[in-house]
Structure formats: structure tokens, C-alpha cells
């Protein structure tokens, strides 16, 4: 509990950061930038977890533990993503997301 700060304030900050991440995801082309945007979003979500746990369910630990998990998974995700980025870079010397459209049938 932070004095004078309600749950809404924290969640609002998290929301703003989240949407900034979304904006980044939509406007960046570089794969690493995309990754950064995703990290922003993930972090914003973790803040939500923590805030809700702290303010709404102080007697419980689920939000707390979930944030731990999210952090762990995010770490795994980043490791994998960077491995992929490097592999892709080796493949065609570019990590521009728009160059990759082999998903298209």
C-alpha cells in the first residue's frame, strides 16, 4: 500500500505503458523493437497483477506468484525470441518484420 495512491492510479499507469507497447508493436519494423514492445506490455501486465494482489487481496499471494511466473516465462520467451532473431538474421541478413511474409499462403 502506497500512501495516497489508489489502485486506479497504478493500473492507469500500467494501462498507459501497455498501450505504448501496443503502439510500438504496431509501428516498429525491427524485430528487436517488436520484442521491446512486447516486453513493455508484459511488464505492464505484471504491474497489474502485483497491484491487484496488494490492494484487493492482501491476504493472498496468487497475484504475487503469478508475477513471478510471468517474469520467468518472459525470460524464457526473450531468450527464445533472440535465438530466433539471430537465426533469421543469419538466414537472410534482415530482421525487418515486413520482410517476413512466408506465412502468407
Amino acid at each position, binding site marked *: 500500500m502506497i500512501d495516497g495512491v489508489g489502485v486506479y492510479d497504478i493500473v492507469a499507469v500500467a494501462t498507459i505503458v501497455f498501450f505504448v507497447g501496443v503502439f510500438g508493436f504496431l509501428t516498429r519494423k525491427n524485430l528487436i523493437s517488436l520484442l521491446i514492445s512486447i516486453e513493455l506490455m508484459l511488464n505492464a501486465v505484471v504491474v497489474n497483477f502485483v497491484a491487484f494482489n496488494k490492494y484487493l487481496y492482501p491476504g493472498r499471494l496468487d497475484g504475487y506468484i503469478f508475477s513471478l511466473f510471468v517474469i520467468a516465462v518472459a525470460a524464457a520467451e526473450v531468450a527464445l525470441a533472440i535465438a530466433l532473431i539471430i537465426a533469421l538474421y543469419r538466414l537472410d541478413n534482415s530482421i525487418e518484420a515486413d520482410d517476413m*511474409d512466408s*506465412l*502468407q499462403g
Partner: protein
Amino acid sequence: MDFGYTIWIFVLPILSFLAIGLLGTRPALTGRSELLRGRVWGWIGTGAVFGSWLLALVTAYRYFFVLGTPDGHRPVVFGAKWVWMRFSEHLSFDMGILLDPISVMMLVVVTTVSFLVHLYSTGYMAGERGYARFFAFLSLFTVSMLGLVVATNIFQMYFFWELVGVSSYLLIGFYYDKPSAVAAAKKAFIVTRFADLGFLIGILILSYYAGTFDFQTLVSAGGPVLGGPAGRSFMGLSVFGWALGLIFMGGAGKSAMFPLHIWLPDAMEGPTPVSALIHAATMVVAGVYLVARLFPLYHEVDGGAILRLVAWTGGITSLIAALIAMTQEDIKRVLAYSTMSQLGYMMLALGVSGLHGHEGLGYMASMFHLFTHAMFKALLFLGAGSVIHAVHSNLMRDMGGLRKYMPVTHLTFLVACLAISGIPPFSGFFSKDEILAAAFERDKLLFVIEYAVAGITAFYMFRIYFGIFWGRERTYAHTPHESPAVMTIPLVVLAILSVLTGLVPFGEYVTADRTPYHGHINWPLALASIAVGVVGILVAKRFYQRPNDLPARAAEMWGRWYKWTRDKFYIDEIYQFVAHKIMFAGIAAPVAWFDRHVVDGFMRGLGWMTETFSLLIADLQSGRVRQYAFVFMGGLIALVLLVLFVTGLLNG
């Protein structure tokens, strides 16, 4: 009296059909054995039909002489009857054996001719490729024809009617590597099939309104047709009238009545014994038999309107066929037209008949003529076959002076010619005389036609007789010789029958109301018909006994008429036009085109539209993750807004 054994009349040829058909035509089975490849199949077929023949004779004896006329008329007996297929609770398709005067008579005719033809064929077909196949088909035909004549109901008749049609197809197309034979077989089948279409529709109408297929119920005086109200009518005829007319169409097709006759001359492409059996003695009379079977209906329904149609169809056919027969070169075709002409006689006789007592003279005469005609026409064909066998040609110009080489054939052929020309005491005289008498009583115009036809018949029959056995003496590449005994014995037997059958007091046995009566010869008419026959013969003798230029001059004199008859009044060409120009080019080709382009085009159009649309929206599926995310995002926001708006949360 038990007639249960009559089933064996069928079973024997069925067995021989199966045996020959399944075993005889398998080269792997028959192997190199001379015996199995050779005549044994012929003898099996002949033996089976011989058994049937004996049984048929026994049946005839028992039916006509032992059973007699218990209550003044000849009874209808069932040899067997069982349900073959069920249409509804009340309507079933039965199989069975119905014995009454005409069916017993037909049993005798069919088995006799069939047996003799089988016997003859063992000689005629010797050494031919497909010998076993031939006998299998002959057996099949025999079974079918027997089934047809003893049918207990009209559907059973239709059943075997189609089967004789297909046997006929198979036998006409026996030499299947000959294109003309294939074409003739196809033509025969399709033309009769077209006629059978009428037959089938007639059966459907009849059975729907009468509620039964059974002959007995149908023709009984208190039955659904004759006993009930006339039913609804359509274009001046009652439904039963239409049904009978359509059924007659089937009969006319099978019996080669004008204008459905075109298949019969072409059918002569088949081996000659086949022509004798199917296209002269038995199958072609099925139409006549059908009308006779339903005779009370034809006589009563719509005041006999359909019966008059039958009479006139018969009359016109007999005249046209006789005219064409005068000018044909191919002896088998002459015989075919002659058959048509005689069938016309029979139809006409039925058409001018009444139902009871002496009124029924025409009916009796028709059946009588059917009986005698079967004998002498089979004889004519077999004789012609014997000649063809000897000279290897069908054409009259390849023949001449054969009486020295083939005495038995010559004499028996002469007997048959005299019989068909109506010279006493040969059988044709008696039956034809009855027909003329019946026609004379009912319709003078028809009588005149038939009288003329009698003369023409005598002329063209003796034209070929003199053409073959007399005429120009000529030398042959292979000296013709008399046929072997298996071929001449049937000729002799048939010749004897052709002489004797005329003496049968037919009215005692076969009449329209199954009540015997004593017929008598109308001598003034008889003398007149003998006279016209003799005139015909004398003219033919003058023209053809010695080579001279009379035929050519006559042909010249008649000019166009000669050409018309020689070209068979161009009826074939009309059919050709209808078949090719209208059916093939006018319907089938447009249908095929329509299907490919319009119906399928529509389906493809649907496909094309889908494809085009999908190409249009395919760019949405760009494979770019950011774009997906954007759309996802936008969609999500829109959706949430929608939910908020709908639930009212947005406002409060």
C-alpha cells in the same frame, strides 16, 4: 387334373441355357477336347427342347382331349403360380403357367418349331465360331417365348416380352463382327423397345385403373374393366381405351406392324435358323397373341374402337409388305416381308372378329393362321437357309436351277409356297380362307385389300421359288449339294405338318369365348381365293420359270412405282431422319452441350466467383504479423465498444 409338370417345359431349356452359356462358352473349360468344343452343346440344347416338345405335346393332348369341355367351354388351368415380386398389399407380380386353348396351342407351336430349328442348326451352324453361344441364345429364346405364351398376367408377359426381345437382339447380332448385323440388331431392339414403351405405359394405366395385372380378372365379364363404369376419358377415349391402344403399340412393334416394321427386314442379318424361329414363327406373332389374349377387352372397350385400329393396321401392313416383297432381291428379305404381310393378315382377322359363337370366326381364323403360318414360314426359312448354305449367298441373282442339286429342299420349299399361296389341300388355304371370310362379313374394303394381297403373295412366293430352283441355269464355283440329314429332316417334318395342319378342325379347339363350334368352308369365297392364288402363280411362272425379259419390261413399265417398292417406300429413310437429325442432332447434342456449358457453367461460375472474391480478400492474409496485430487490436477495440454500447455501460 394336375398340370404341375408343365414347369418342366421351361426348366429343361433353362438348364440347357445355363449349361451351355456357362460352360460351353469358356475356352478354358472346353479346352482342346474336340467333343466339348464341337457338337455336344448343340445336342444338349436340342435334347432339352426335344424334352419340352414332348411335354408340350402331352400337355396339349391332356388339355384338349382328356380335359375336354367340362361345362361347355374349355377351362382355364393354372400349371403353377407364385408371387414373384410385390408392388403393394393387393398388387403383386406373379409368375405362373396359364393354360387355355391359345396358350396350349402356342406351347405346341413354339416347342415344335424350336425343336426343329435346334435340330436343323446342329447342321447349319456346324463349324461356326460361337457354336455353343448360338445354342445358348436359342435356348434362352425358347424359354422366354414359352414364358410369354403361358403368362398368367400382363406383367409376366412384359417380362418375357423383353426377354424375347433381347434374345432376338443377341441372335440377330450373332455375327457381331459384321457391322451390318450389329446395326440390324440394335435397330431391332430399339424399335421394339420404343414400341414396348407404349406397352409399359399401357400396363401402368391398365393396372392403375383396374387394380390388377391378372389376365383372368381383366378379361372376365364382371371384372374391373368390363364390369365397372367406363372411368374417366381423355380425348374421346376412355382410359382403358388408351391403355389398350398403347398396349397394341407394343404388340405392333413386336409383330412388325406398319409403321413399326422397319426392324424386321434388317433382322435377316441373323443366321437363317434364327430368322425361321424368331422372325417368322414365334416371336413376331407375340403381338398377335397379345391382342388375342386381351381380346375381350379390345372387343368391348370404347365400342371396339381400338379393335378397328388393329384391323386397319393389319390390313395396311399386309398390303405394303406384299408390295415391297415383290421387288426385293434378297430371298430372306422377301420372306421377311412376306412374314409381315401374313402377320398383317392375323391382326386383321382379330380386328374383324366378334366375341361369341360364329361371330368369333376372325379370332379363330387368326389363331389358325398363326398356327399354320408358323409351320410353313419356318419351312420356307429353313429351306432358304438350306439354299443359302449351299450357294453362300442371299441374293436371287446368284441362284437358279437348283432343283437338280437339292431335291429335298426343292420339294419341301414348293410345298411351303403352295401353302402360303392358299392352294388346297395345303394348310395355308384353310386358315387364309377363314380370314377372308371373316373380313368379308365385317368390312368389304378390308376384304378387297386382303384378296389382292392373296394374289400378290402367290406371285412373289413363286417368283422366288422359280428364281431359285428354275430360272437361269448357271454354273457354280462350288457345285451345290443337298444339305445333311439333320437339316433335311426338319424340312420334311415341317412339310408334312404344312400339309396336315390345315385339316385340323380348329374351331373345335381355339375360339374367342373358348366354346367349341364347327366351322365350315365358305366355298364361293374359297374358290375365288384359289383362283387369285393360281393367277399369281401363273404370272410368276411366266415371268421367272425361264429366263426372259418380261421382269425387266414390267419394271420399266411401272417405273417410279417399281422404284418406290424396291426402296421400301423410303420408310427407313424417314426413321433415319428422325433418329439422327432429331434425336441425336436435335436433342442429344444440345443436351450434352447444355450440360457442359450452361448447367456446369453455372456451377463453375459459382466457383469462379468464390475464387475471385477470395483473391480480393487474400491480401488481408498478408503474413505480416504487425498487420494482424493491428487488425486484432482494432477489432478488439471495436468489439469492446460494441459490448459497452449494447449493455449501456458506456453511458452510465
